């Protein structure tokens, strides 16, 4: 079988370096991964094609790159699954980080974010002679988030990082959750406080992209949501994010339908009149496009509100 790898290339040593695309035609075996294909190119056609790779088994996290527009590990992506009919495969470096050469990106900003969450256990001192005791059910679930291999794939495709370089991002926040949820760590409150700040846990827009692309099933966004629940349960100072979450549930519970203007007022608070006023053009546009029910701020609960409230009750008793 044949495919064409269309690789985005960049050589900083050229006179006027700018990215360009190069196509490589390739015979492949059904068991070959995109990484196998790239290695074949590098070893038999053009050794200047530059990428990082090592384990070939999705554990070292070296070969993060975008394949057909989404970040993934090249070793874990079968050629046949992205080009079943042998078409062209687009291969590009990860997003949201500078490119060094071809598919090799500079992970420095990635690691700076990781360091910002102080990623080391801070247990009770002095340490016991033997291990810290902890019930298995409090520890074993951490394996899910410890499976993170720091490949950068979630960060590459994070839609918030695209517009806000300061955002901690999915990988660092998932790593933070790993310590917040560790029963041996005694600094949960300090950690949550730091993550409750701007650029922290409340800046995720829940686009789900990180869950979608994570090659290890870490589910970074789910960890971010878990951090939020913990912050709210621990009564961390309210943020726009936590007020939004609270107001959202509250409104649905009492009216059975979203009261958008009320949601905005309760999220920002009357103190932020400026921000509220700034939203007016958007409100107009939304109304014109039919995105806001015309009932307005005075709308009444829907007629079958008792069903909604029953649902709330059931969820509450379940959790």
């Amino acid at each position, binding site marked *: 079988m044949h495919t064409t790898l269309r690789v985005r290339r960049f050589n900083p040593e050229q006179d006027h370096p700018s990215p360009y695309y190069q196509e490589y035609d390739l015979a492949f075996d059904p068991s070959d991964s995109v990484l196998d294909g790239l290695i074949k190119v590098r070893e038999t056609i053009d050794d200047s094609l530059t990428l990082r790779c*090592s384990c070939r088994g999705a554990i070292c996290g070296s070969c993060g790159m975008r394949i057909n527009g989404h970040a993934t590990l090249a070793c874990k992506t079968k050629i046949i699954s992205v080009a079943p009919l042998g078409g062209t495969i687009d291969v590009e470096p990860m997003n949201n980080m500078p490119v060094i050469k071809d598919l090799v990106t500079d992970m420095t900003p990635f690691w700076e974010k990781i360091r910002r969450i*102080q990623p080391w256990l801070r247990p009770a001192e002095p340490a016991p002679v033997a291990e810290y005791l902890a019930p298995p059910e409090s520890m074993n679930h951490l394996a899910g988030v*410890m499976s993170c291999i*720091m490949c950068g794939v979630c960060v590459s495709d994070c839609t918030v990082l695209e517009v806000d370089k300061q955002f901690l991002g999915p990988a660092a926040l998932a790593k933070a959750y790993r310590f917040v949820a560790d029963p041996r760590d005694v600094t949960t409150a300090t950690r949550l406080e730091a993550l409750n700040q701007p650029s922290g846990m409340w800046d995720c827009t829940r686009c789900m992209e990180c869950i979608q692309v994570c090659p290890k099933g870490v589910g970074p966004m789910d960890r971010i949501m878990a951090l939020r629940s913990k912050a709210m349960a621990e009564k961390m100072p309210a943020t726009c994010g936590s007020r939004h979450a609270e107001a959202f549930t509250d409104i649905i519970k009492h009216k059975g339908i979203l009261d958008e203007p009320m949601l905005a007022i309760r999220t920002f608070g009357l103190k932020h009149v400026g921000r509220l006023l700034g939203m007016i053009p958007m409100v107009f546009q939304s109304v014109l496009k039919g995105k806001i029910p015309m009932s307005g701020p005075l709308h009444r609960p829907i007629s079958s509100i008792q069903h909604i409230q029953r649902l709330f009750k059931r969820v509450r008793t379940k959790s």
Partner: protein
Amino acid sequence: MISPPTYDVLIVGAGLAGMRAAISAHQQGASVALLTKVHPVRSHSNAAQGGINAALTDRGDKWEDHAFETVKGSDYLADQDAVEVLAQDAGHDIITLEHMGVIFNRNDEGQLGTRRFGGQKKARTFFVSDFTGQAMLHVLYEQLMQAKLPVYEEWFVTSLVKDEQGHCAGLVAFEMRTGQFALFRAKTVIMASGGLGRVYEPSTNALICTGDGMAVAYRAGAPLMDMEMVQYHPTTLKGKGLLITEAARGEGAYLLNKQGDRFMKHYAPTMLELASRDVVSRAEQIEINEGRGMNGCVFLDCRHLGRAFLQNRLGQIYAEAQTFANIDLAEELLPIRPGMHYQMGGIKTDTEGRCWDIHNQWKGLPGLFAAGETACVSLHGGNRLGANSLLDTIVFGRRAGQCAANYSRTIPPPTISERSMEADQHLVATILARKGPGERPAALRLEMGTTMNRYVSVFREQEGLETARQHIQALKARWPDVTIDDKGQVYNTGMIAVLELSFMLDCAEAIIAGALTRKESRGAHFRTDYLDRDDEDWLQHILLYHQPGSEPLTDFLPVTITQWQPQIRVY
């Protein structure tokens, strides 16, 4: 030009052994830096799946049992003083890891839980699901970040540098991102650069495992020991040779031949699938050679373990089988075969990680230390037990770091000149200047790998080894003419491939020299022309010294025996 500060302890490699060494040397107050060709968490320690051994007294286990089984596993080639150190330090070092943050699986009492592993009668393997190495590696990197230790990331070492007294005084390396060379001055250097798996094709090892540290130390005068002892892991996937953890068998999976027979009962009636790795790999190879395999494989049967159990305790290989072999472990048999996995031999060290002998019984390189797979203490002798390699990195990484830090206090700062870089800079310039089209490094590597896998594998004999020796010599002669397309300075992976190839060829030559020398069958070294273990003549280590331009020089060292006299080895 980059001129790094002088360090007390400079560590090459930032896998488990390297990072553990760095942390302990730092705790001793030494100035420490690490230098690695990949980011620390990309290191191959990641790949250790199943667990880490320790006999904890409060679990009713005895370190002596662990030590004995390690010695037996080694086919009595391990140095028993070293094994005693390993088994005695294990408990403390594992608890330290737990305190650092490793999320080991727990039992119902909230203590660390264990599972069974090969070659051992007791369940003494501590684990994190089936990604124990990865979980440990990331925690050690957390510790490194906390201590703010400098890491020269993506730097490639080309040679060690000695001062006028022949003391190791630093190294030459270049930064991959810029191609710039630098001379690193250090009172001590610790090699913790991992294994040499890529000398073979296929191998379970990552593409970065190219024996750089062994070759660089060897060329600088440190002897390599027991290089013929190359472990073939019993369960690797066909094709690219990816690893399926021994924990699968530890948790109860069977090995079947094509008739559905649990064939291990014919080879190891008591331990069955959990006999030591050399025994299981040989058994599988016999089944395959005698026609009871299928397409060059036998089968791993996990079906009776159940889907939930597989997902929970063996999640990584459950996913791996799905992704890389298209097999549902809960319902199908997985074709597997023995594959190159681990180098028991390596740079000769003592139990403190020193690559020279303070008693002058053997000649080494003062100032150089080594730990982990690149070193040979010798703990694993002729065959390493599963879950002893992680332990090796942690115990001997820590000891090497401590000893290097203390030793560095006793010696003056190194005196070496910038001119020590010239030869390596010249070599790189020559390779870049070569006009193509010549042979590509990958073509030579593939020939080397398949040659080694054909003649220097589970079964070996004189004629095949001689053939391999000639092939490797021919490849060495062709190496000076390989060319690369990339003529740039920035991240030139073609250049790296050429340099790694020359390291691997030296390693291959040493493996074959050891295999030709050892005229007996012991552990992983099975000679069809010398079927038996021969304690009278061969209960000794083989030391190889590099001789530029000719065959290695051979020397011998007696095996240290403390409390376990060699016995017949039955599982």
